[in-house]
């Protein structure tokens, strides 16, 4: 077990739902995990599995009024974020806790200069001492935007997608956060630019020693920079594993299927493995394992009771009836 002081974030039995006309969507339904200092965690899963809602819950930014954190604890440096006031949260966000969103074009305000938007993060947190412009230029330098002195006065539409994503990463790290949550930071980008951004994130992580939660459905991105992988399915985490175990020896049938279904460059096979069936409906989910309708290894108990999490070895846990 990690000693208490190595732990930066501890999420305990988090439940977040959306109360809609169609019913209660249990977007996150009992999620627990920890993030240690300096660790890069990959959170993977299909769209709608609850990755973004998990991270929005940590930031206390769940869309209102439909969304609500129903229960659980989110301990950041041993303090429960769910007990914090809105002004205390504002103090944390963009400072010790930062988040980079999926679509750079949407996340940046198109009507304000890039420099202004980076500057805002400093000002907000009372660090606007003296040479704000120099600081903004330094951030652009850090994220390797070419000719930062002139670029600082540009508007986002004058930047390519890759450069906007660099700017967002720049605002994310401006105040040296302890935890950075990046939601699909490279999904909207081309492969050549993707490689650049991943390298940048890796280097910055080392430099400021932040912990990162990287959210993606792209298994290749995870393999590149994460040390651990948490796999989500239907609002729950079904497997937690060190990155190598996840790729070479996945234990949950869903993880196994996921890895097998990715076509590998240069290794063409006759027929791809495919997990049949559709992702689960999160309104009135069945009591048992959410993956049961698609699982080829399902047993009788699987549809009746949700499987408990068992530890297979150090840092490797799985929730599946095959193991308990």
């Amino acid at each position, binding site marked *: 077990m990690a000693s208490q002081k190595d732990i930066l974030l501890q999420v305990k039995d988090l439940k977040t739902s959306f109360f809609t006309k169609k019913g209660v969507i249990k977007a996150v339904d009992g999620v627990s995990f920890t993030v240690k200092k300096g660790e890069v965690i990959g959170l993977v899963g*299909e769209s709608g599995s609850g990755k973004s809602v998990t991270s929005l819950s940590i930031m206390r930014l769940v869309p209102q009024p439909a969304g609500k954190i129903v229960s659980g604890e989110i301990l950041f440096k041993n303090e429960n974020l769910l007990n914090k006031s809105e002004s205390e949260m504002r103090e944390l966000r963009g400072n010790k806790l930062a988040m980079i969103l999926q679509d750079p074009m949407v996340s940046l305000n198109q009507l304000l200069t890039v420099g202004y938007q980076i500057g805002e993060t400093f000002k907000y947190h009372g660090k606007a001492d003296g040479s704000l412009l120099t600081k903004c230029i330094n951030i652009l330098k850090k994220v390797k935007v070419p000719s930062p002195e002139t670029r600082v006065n540009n508007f986002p539409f004058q930047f390519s997608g890759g450069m906007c994503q660099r700017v967002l990463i720049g605002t994310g790290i401006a105040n040296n956060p302890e935890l950075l949550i990046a939601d699909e930071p490279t999904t909207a980008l081309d492969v050549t630019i993707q490689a650049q951004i991943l390298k940048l994130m890796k280097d910055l992580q080392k430099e400021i020693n932040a912990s990162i939660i990287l959210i993606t459905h792209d298994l290749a991105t995870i393999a590149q920079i994460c040390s651990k992988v948490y796999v989500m399915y239907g609002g729950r985490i079904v497997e937690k594993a060190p990155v*190598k175990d996840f790729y070479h020896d996945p234990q949950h049938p869903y993880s196994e299927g996921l890895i097998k*279904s990715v076509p590998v460059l240069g290794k*063409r096979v006759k027929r*791809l493995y495919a997990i049949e069936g559709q992702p689960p409906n999160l309104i009135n989910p069945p009591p048992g394992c959410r993956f049961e309708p698609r699982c080829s290894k399902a047993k009788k108990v699987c549809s009746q009771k949700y499987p408990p999490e068992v530890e297979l070895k150090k840092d490797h846990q799985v929730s599946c009836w095959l193991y308990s």
Partner: protein
Amino acid sequence: MSKKKIISVENLKKYFPITKGFIFTNVIGNVKAVDNISFDILEGQTLGLVGESGCGKSTTANVLLGLEPPTSGQIKFQGEDIAQFSKTQLFSFRRNIQAVFQDPFRSLSPRKKVKQIISEPMSVHRVGLREMQYERVMELLSLVGLSPEHAELYPHEFSGGQRQRIAIARALSLNPKTIILDEPLSALDVSIQAQILNLLIDLQKKFNLTFLIISHDLAVVEHISDNIGVMYLGILAEIAPSDKLYSNPKHPYTVALLESVPIADPDAKVEVSLEGEVPSPLNPPPGCRFHPRCPKAKAECKKTEPEMKEITSGHFVSCHLY
């Protein structure tokens, strides 16, 4: 046995004029979205097109589909220039070339039931009576792995993967020879992508379909394609049989692109092999348009644009190194 060419594209250009002013509009430049490309697609085969965003893949597809007129160049269908087609020939050509687009959430009309969506091309082309069309819808639903009761539902009642199955059923409805697939898997999850990819391969075998597939995911393209074309800023940098392109890429851009592909294996680390951003197609660099980013650029590359050369059978490259 040599296969027949079903589609040939010769020196195709598609420019989009950039205008200024509201009443007296002046053309102040052209976005050279596609700038002189040529390729053939053989019957029953798949050509994959890859390249960075904005390089002209979709424009090429849209011109082939007749959604945009070409600026110049020829498109031949079974050896005949489609620009010379009579009305009836054109009508039959349109029947034979169908499309599936990226976003299954936007490409299906939300107010129509699945049976109407799938039979739409049949109605447009006045094929079959209503009852026959309905039978065909049932047949198509089962071909793409959906069930009869799905016919009465609306698109929003389906998941992304199921919607893409509906789009594929619609594309198949007129028994086309060719289907153009523009990023058909990008909006789908990994586990669903594999299902759709397998479905496409099965349908191709069954009906001897010809595919043009566009994707930014090189592994997906490799998995399904016989030949692959790599586009860069409106041109074809390289086109080759899949195995040759991956095992022996020639164009420095193809090499860099392949090196940048993230690999789902924690033991394989990806290198950043391409610095810099893609230049604007409004003003492509002179000479070889890849030269500002090319690690192998020579003096000549800045001045003259390389021509496409066949270096081994079926393997074409536009680069001064060859």
